[in-house]
């Protein structure tokens, strides 16, 4: 039972060192001639490892890299990917408010410098390179993690800040399940979620359905008007629905299957609070499909994935009589292999071929391009030292880039303690988007790729004392981004991108986790903190006051803390998110003050024969903080969500 699960997990494209570790176990149990005792340097037995299945699943990259693995409670408690990252990691989300856009800034980098993968398939728009994180309901994935800085070098080229990995894991050994949840919330929010999983004759069928609608007509104090009148948010109605269907077949030492994700969002875009009327509407329609084949043969494991993504974006402004529609398609193919030479050395080879095409009123013709990359390297385990060396070769249309390396390592400091020192370095490239190249007017087809050179070092410590598990992780980073693409006005009265900007990102990230069990009571603390200093260091205008100033919308400090308490069938959850001051003008003359948001929920499970009924009540912005996440964008005060779910 456990084996199959591990096997599948293992074949994921980035689980190098861990996979080696896990596969060794499988190989052993499959009676391959292998000695693995050295690898478990803490002398844990198989049984105790097996008891921590989920922790193993979460560890996809070598431990020397910084990552944030979201636990299942956080995923379930969050409305969408935007909220999940904002409340449960140190990464900053630019949230324009309910129903509006939500983009990301990872380690001080721009929105297109974070890449989002869905089971390996890269979802970023070929047009602007970005992702709207409000369009990813959490029911559509069961695992999510962030790869910070150098870790993302192993995922793809292009993630100068980090990457976000969404996964749907399959468990062929589990029971058939069905789950339905209905939620009702403030400001006309209704949400219906349905999830089923059904296994027969080694076939697994799983379905998730999602429907969400909200008026978002919350009240706010309009600070931009004389006397700061209380006003109601205008033009923020939204609805989203989606379905995801997966079908998988279990094979001997592998699996084959695929999934389809259909998603439709229709939302009015709320105006800034200085605007009295708005008629903007945006529709996003996505079709995503992928096929996966995972297999272990002798010492070789491989995953073959092929994804097809179609995204349609329709923007309308009735008052300006603007209607624009853009279509983008991409085909993303991956072959990821790991060859386990012995218990000390694993060879990794990942091949990716990606085809992108888009049509838009902003382009003179349909634009397309093909990108290929091959990453090759190895991981080494020598006693208390682990090392890895990789290089990525990139080809884009007819341009070849032979050097995008990543090296990393960790060392266990004390023989009996899980205390590691770790360090990584690498170079990554982000290629200009189709908009950067071809937007008419302004597109610049002579742009160079943006280049990030990064180093990071830190430590991690985990310890179990009785029923208490402690984990600490801290890393300092330096990331120098050159050829950063910036759109600036030109002498021809339109804007055009150039490789002008150079940015230095320096910072520090720390994670703290503490889980204690006292009989039927479980108390879990989790905290994330990041300090990020991102400064622009290059300009072509001597009057430019942005030199050596913090980039806009990069908070120096971000902190969040989550407490979850479970007692028998009752659970309490509390989340605190602090986002520090961030500048909103490049000369750092204007800023948005820090905000600190408290959220809490309580839920009760009731067992009715075979059915588990769960009722939960959640209060967001518990202290009714009046704040702006983005300048002059209204945010809701205290609001509630009540849910009832039935699970089988």
């Amino acid at each position: 039972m456990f084996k199959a699960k591990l096997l599948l997990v293992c074949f994921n494209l980035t689980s190098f060192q861990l996979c080696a570790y896990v596969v060794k176990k499988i190989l052993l149990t499959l009676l391959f001639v292998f000695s693995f005792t050295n690898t478990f340097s803490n002398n844990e037995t198989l049984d105790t490892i097996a008891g921590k299945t989920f922790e193993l699943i979460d560890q996809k990259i070598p431990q020397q890299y910084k990552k944030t693995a979201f636990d299942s409670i956080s995923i379930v408690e969050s409305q969408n990917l935007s909220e999940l990252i904002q409340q449960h990691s140190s990464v900053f989300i630019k949230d324009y408010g309910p129903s509006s856009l939500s983009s990301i800034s990872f380690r001080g980098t721009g929105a297109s410098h974070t890449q989002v993968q869905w089971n390996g398939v890269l979802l970023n728009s070929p047009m602007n390179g970005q992702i709207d994180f409000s369009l990813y309901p959490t029911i559509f994935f069961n695992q999510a993690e962030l790869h910070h800085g150098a870790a993302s070098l192993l995922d793809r080229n292009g993630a100068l800040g980090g990457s976000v990995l969404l996964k749907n894991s399959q468990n062929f050994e589990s029971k058939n399940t069905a789950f339905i949840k209905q939620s009702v919330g403030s400001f006309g929010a209704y949400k219906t979620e349905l999830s089923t999983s059904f296994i027969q004759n080694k076939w697994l069928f799983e379905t998730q359905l999602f429907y969400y609608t909200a008026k978002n007509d919350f009240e706010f104090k309009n600070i931009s008007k004389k006397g700061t009148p209380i006003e109601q948010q205008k033009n923020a109605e939204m609805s989203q629905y989606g379905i995801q269907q997966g079908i998988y077949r279990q094979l001997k030492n592998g699996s084959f299957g695929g999934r389809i994700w259909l998603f439709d969002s229709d939302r009015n875009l709320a105006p800034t609070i200085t605007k009295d009327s708005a008629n903007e509407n945006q529709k996003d329609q996505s079709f995503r499909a992928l096929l996966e084949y995972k297999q272990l043969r002798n010492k070789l494991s491989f995953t073959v994935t092929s994804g097809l993504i179609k995204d349609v974006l329709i923007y309308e402004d009735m008052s300006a009589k603007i209607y624009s529609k853009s279509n983008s398609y991409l085909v993303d193919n991956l072959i990821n292999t790991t060859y386990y030479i012995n218990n000390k050395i694993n060879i990794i080879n990942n091949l990716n071929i990606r085809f992108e095409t888009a049509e838009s009123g902003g382009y003179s013709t349909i634009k397309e391009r093909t990108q290929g990359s091959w990453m090759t390297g190895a991981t080494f385990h020598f006693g208390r030292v682990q090392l890895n060396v990789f290089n990525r070769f990139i080809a884009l249309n007819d341009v070849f880039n032979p050097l995008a390396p990543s090296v990393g390592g960790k060392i266990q400091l004390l023989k009996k303690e899980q205390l590691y020192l770790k360090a990584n370095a690498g170079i990554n490239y982000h290629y200009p988007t189709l908009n950067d190249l071809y937007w008419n007017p302004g597109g610049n087809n002579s742009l160079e790729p943006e280049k990030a050179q990064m180093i990071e070092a830190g430590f991690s410590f985990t310890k179990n004392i009785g029923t208490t598990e402690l984990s600490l992780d801290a890393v300092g980073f330096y990331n120098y981004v050159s050829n950063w693409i910036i759109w600036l006005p030109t002498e021809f009265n339109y804007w055009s991108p150039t490789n002008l900007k150079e940015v230095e990102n320096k910072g520090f990230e720390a994670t703290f986790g503490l889980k204690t069990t006292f009989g039927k009571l479980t108390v879990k603390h989790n905290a994330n903190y990041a300090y990020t200093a991102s400064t622009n260091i290059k300009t072509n205008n001597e009057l430019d006051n942005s030199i050596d100033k913090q980039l806009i919308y990069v908070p120096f400090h971000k902190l969040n803390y989550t407490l979850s308490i479970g007692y028998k069938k009752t659970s309490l959850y509390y989340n605190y998110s602090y986002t520090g001051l961030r500048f909103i003008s490049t000369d750092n003359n204007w800023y948005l003050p820090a905000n600190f948001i408290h959220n809490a929920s309580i839920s009760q499970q009731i067992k009715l024969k075979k059915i588990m009924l769960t009722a939960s009540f959640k209060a967001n912005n518990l202290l009714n903080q009046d704040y702006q996440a983005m300048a002059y964008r209204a945010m809701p005060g205290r609001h509630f969500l009540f849910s009832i779910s039935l699970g089988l």
Partner: protein
Amino acid sequence: MKKHFLYILCLILLFRCKKEEIGPQCLNCDETPISNTSSTDVLIINEGTFGWSNASIALYNKSNNNVNQNVFKNANNVTSLGDVAQSFLQINDKGYIVVNNSNKIEVVKMNDFKSVTTITGFNSPRYMLKINNSKAYVTDLYSNSVQIVNLNSNTISGNIAVQGWTEQLVLHNDTAYVCDMTNNNILIINTLTDVLVDSIKVGISPNSLVLDKNNQLWVLCSGGFNKENARLIQINPSNRDIIQTFTFSNINHSPGSLIINGSKDNLYFINNSIYQMSITGNSLPSTPIVTNSGNLFYGLGIDPTNNDIYVADAIDYVQNGVVFRYSASGSLIHQFTAGIIPGSFWFIE
């Protein structure tokens, strides 16, 4: 358990103690309201970044070089003027700030910038023209109409239907001449009847126009994005004939901000650099009066009293811009920091 709750309580209290600030705050701003404007003051209308609601008005005193930022905000104790301050018009003792993307016109007292009222109900207002003491016209980007504003009640009293984007406008006798950016016309509106009576075909994108001392209209057409060469066109309003057309030689060039001096005999415009041309000139000027050495000039103003040239560099459009003041002959007198995207100037009468 108890321990945890106490812990949370501490955390909450810790962050509640801070002074409450909501929305954008200025780090280095003088927040004292201005006392009294004078005829030696120049207003700089800072558009602000589109969608960011950071428009502002700065006040520059040309005799002592003193600059007051955020004049509207400070006088009225609000956080922001709004989104995109497109243009300004003084009518007697009142100032009218056209705030494009906040769909409004802020009416202020000229002496202290205290708010009189806010005229609302616009779609995307651009420029305002006084027709008489009780009536003004306001052009609009999207509404397919020119709005008629009653200056006594400060309300929109009607509109004149047009097709598309109307931009700058001037008055001559009982006729308003309006740039029609969509159809590349100068629209002719009878201001007694508020009726669109005729139009004159000009070049692509007529973005600005002025009236000279001989009552001749000068229209600057940018030519669009590489669609055709830009043109400067002279029109005789009495018979609506095009008198002469000057064509710019480089199709990439996109001139704008046509302005006339106080004695109405010299034209100025931005074409990367700043150019000056006499109304009697027989060709476009070949050498600029102010060269853009590394700057990208955005807003232009000519002091009607002494022909001093005011020009702004918006830098990256997300920080305070810089204003250069040159003498009539083009030598730099002073430079100072204004607000975000300084787009136009008003010389207080």
